[in-house]
C-alpha cells in the first residue's frame, strides 16, 4: 500500500471523468508536439537541401515554384530555358560553381534528372555500389529509388513522360542502372541521375517520330534550371539585369524558403493556439474532475483523517491524482503525435518522396512537458487544499 497506489485506484474508480481529462490533455499535448516536430523536421529538410546553393536560374514564373521544383523536387518546373543563354550565366565571372539540371521524365514517379557529376558531389553523396553514370542512358539512382522500385545494377528501365504518371512511356530507349548512391538524407535519395544528353536523347527521337513531313531544324538545346554558387556577393545584384532580355529568372532559395516559412507559420501558429486552447480546457477539466470527485469523496477523506491520516498525506494524495492524470495525458499525447507523424510522413513520402519520420524528443517538447506538469499540478492544487481544510466532525456527522 502506498500513496501512488491509492491515487491510481482513485483515478481508475472514475473512468468517465478520467477519460475526458485524458482525451483533452493528450490531444492538446499531441497537437502541439506534432506541430513542433513538423516545424523542426521540415526546416531541417529544407536547410539540408539548400546547402550552399545561393541562386537558382530557371524559366520565368513563380520564384518559389522555381526553388521548390529545382532544389527540392517537389513542385513542377516553371518551364525550360535555352542552354546557350544559361551557359552565359554559368560562365559569368561572379559564379563559382554551376550545376545544370534537365528533366521532365519519371520512372515510377521518381524523377529522372540529367545533370553533371558535380550535383551529387555538391551534397557529398557517396556511392553504395557501382559507379557514376558516364555515357548516354546510363543512370545512377538514389537509395530510396532502389528500395521502392527494386532496381539493381545492370537493370534496364524505360522513362515515362511527365513527372508523376506512367501513362506515356518512352519504350524506344532504355536506361541502364550503373550505380546506387548511399543514403544521404538529401534530395538525391529520391532521384535518378543521368547525362543531360540522355534527356535530350529520349525526346529528340520522340519528337522525330511525330515530326514526319514537317520541316526539321536542329533543335535548340534546352535545360530546366541551373543551381548556382556565387563567387562574389555582387552576383545577386548583377545577374538579374544580366538576364533581363531572356525568359530566365534568378531566385534566391533562402529568401523564398523564409517566405514560405512565414506563410506556413501563420497556419502553424493558428493551430498552436487551437492546441493551447484545448490544453487550457483540459486543465479545467482536470480541475473540475478532481473538484467534483472531492465533493463525493468528502466523507471518505474525513474518514481517512479519523483513522489517523495526516493532512499532508491526503494533500499529497490528491496532488498525486492530478499529477498522474497529467503525466499519463502527456505520455499519450507524445505517442499520439508520433503516430500522426508516422502517418503523415508516409503520406508525404508517397506524394513528395520526402521522409520525415525521425522522431526523437525535442527540446521544445521537454519545455512543453514541464509546463504541462506545472499547470497540471496547479490545477489539482485547489482541490487538494480544499481537501485538507474539511471539518472532520461536521463531515462525518452530516453523512
Amino acid at each position, binding site marked *: 500500500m502506498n500513496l501512488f497506489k*491509492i491515487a491510481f485506484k*482513485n483515478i481508475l474508480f472514475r473512468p468517465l471523468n478520467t477519460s475526458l481529462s485524458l482525451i483533452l490533455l493528450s490531444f492538446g499535448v499531441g497537437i502541439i508536439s506534432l506541430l513542433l516536430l513538423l516545424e523542426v523536421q521540415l526546416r531541417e529538410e529544407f536547410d539540408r537541401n539548400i546547402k550552399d546553393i545561393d541562386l537558382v536560374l530557371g524559366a520565368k514564373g513563380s520564384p518559389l515554384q522555381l526553388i521548390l521544383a529545382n532544389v527540392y523536387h517537389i513542385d513542377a518546373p516553371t518551364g525550360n530555358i535555352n542552354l546557350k543563354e544559361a551557359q552565359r550565366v554559368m560562365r559569368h565571372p561572379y559564379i563559382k560553381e554551376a550545376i545544370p539540371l534537365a528533366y521532365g521524365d519519371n520512372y515510377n514517379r521518381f524523377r529522372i534528372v540529367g545533370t553533371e557529376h558535380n550535383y551529387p558531389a555538391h551534397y557529398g553523396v557517396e556511392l553504395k555500389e557501382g559507379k557514376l553514370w558516364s555515357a548516354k542512358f546510363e543512370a545512377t539512382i538514389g537509395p530510396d529509388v532502389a528500395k521502392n522500385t527494386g532496381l539493381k545494377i545492370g537493370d534496364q528501365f524505360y522513362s515515362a513522360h511527365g513527372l508523376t504518371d506512367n501513362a506515356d512511356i518512352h519504350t524506344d530507349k532504355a536506361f541502364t542502372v550503373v550505380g546506387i548512391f548511399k543514403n544521404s538524407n538529401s534530395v538525391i535519395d529520391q532521384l535518378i541521375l543521368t547525362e543531360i544528353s540522355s534527356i535530350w536523347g529520349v525526346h529528340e527521337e520522340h519528337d522525330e517520330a511525330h515530326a514526319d513531313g514537317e520541316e526539321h531544324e536542329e533543335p535548340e538545346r534546352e535545360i530546366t534550371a541551373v543551381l548556382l554558387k556565387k563567387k562574389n556577393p555582387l552576383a545577386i545584384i548583377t545577374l538579374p539585369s544580366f538576364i533581363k532580355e531572356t525568359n530566365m529568372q534568378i531566385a534566391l532559395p533562402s529568401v523564398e524558403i523564409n517566405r514560405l516559412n512565414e506563410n506556413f507559420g501563420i497556419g502553424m501558429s493558428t493551430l498552436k493556439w487551437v492546441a493551447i486552447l484545448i490544453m487550457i480546457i483540459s486543465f479545467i477539466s482536470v480541475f473540475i474532475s478532481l473538484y467534483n470527485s472531492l465533493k463525493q469523496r468528502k466523507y471518505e477523506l474525513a474518514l481517512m483523517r479519523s483513522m489517523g491520516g495526516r*493532512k499532508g498525506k491526503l494533500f499529497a494524495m490528491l496532488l498525486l491524482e492530478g499529477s498522474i492524470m497529467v503525466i499519463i495525458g502527456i505520455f499519450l499525447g507524445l505517442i499520439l503525435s508520433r503516430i500522426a507523424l508516422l502517418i503523415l510522413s508516409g503520406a508525404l513520402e508517397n506524394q513528395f518522396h520526402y521522409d520525415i519520420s525521425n522522431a526523437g524528443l525535442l527540446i521544445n517538447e521537454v519545455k512543453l512537458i514541464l509546463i504541462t506538469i506545472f499547470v497540471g499540478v496547479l490545477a489539482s492544487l485547489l482541490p487538494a487544499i480544499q481537501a485538507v481544510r474539511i471539518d*472532520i466532525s461536521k463531515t462525518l456527522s452530516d453523512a
Partner: protein
Amino acid sequence: MDLKFWVLLSMLVAKDLKFTYSTGPSFSFPDFSCGKEEQLLLLGESGKGKTTLLHLLAGMLKASSGTLELMETDLRNLSAGELDRFRGEHIGIVFQTAHFVESLNVEDNLIMPQYLCSKKIDRQKAKTILSRLNLEHKLKEFPKNLSVGEQQRVAIARALMNDPQVILADEPTSALDDKNAMEVIQLLEEQAKATGAALVIVTHDQRLKDHVQKHIQL
C-alpha cells in the same frame, strides 16, 4: 474518589465536559469513566449531543471546557497533528453507517488504518480479523458489493486493525434489524475483550440496554 486515582484505573475519564458550537447549540455532559476491558453505553435521544460527545472523545472536536483524558493524555493539550496521530494509534471508531474508500477492496480498506498511521502493513492481520468475523471470503470484494450487515462488520474489523485501547462506536446498530444488531453488539464486545480495549457505545438504541451493564443517560 480522587480524580488522580480514577485515571490510574481508567482508560477514559470525562469531567465537567462542555461543548458549544459556533452556531449556537451548547451541550454539557455528565461525568463518566471507562476502564480497561470495560464497556460503557452512553444513551440519549436525538439532540442530546451524542455524536458531539463521540467526536469529543475521538479528538475530532475540542471541548470548550472540562477535562477529557484518554490513557492519561489530556486531549485538549494535543495539537491537530498530534490528535490525528493519537486517534489513529489508540482509538478505533465505528460509525453509524459504514463508509469506505470506495476505490479500494476490503483488504486494502482494512490495512488503511495501518498505512495512515505509518505502521508496518500486516495483510495477514486483516485476514485473521476478517475470518474472526466470518468474512474471510470477502477479502478481495469491493465494499459497495457487500450487504449493510457485512459492511458494518468490515467497519468493525477496520476499527480493530491498530489494536486500539479504546473503541468508540456511534450508533453501530441503529441501521440494523434485531438479528444483525445483536450480532454486531456481540461482535463489538467480543473483539473489545479480545484486544483488551475499552468499549464506548453512543446510541439511542434501547435494545442495547440489556446487553451492556454500565450505562449513562445523557
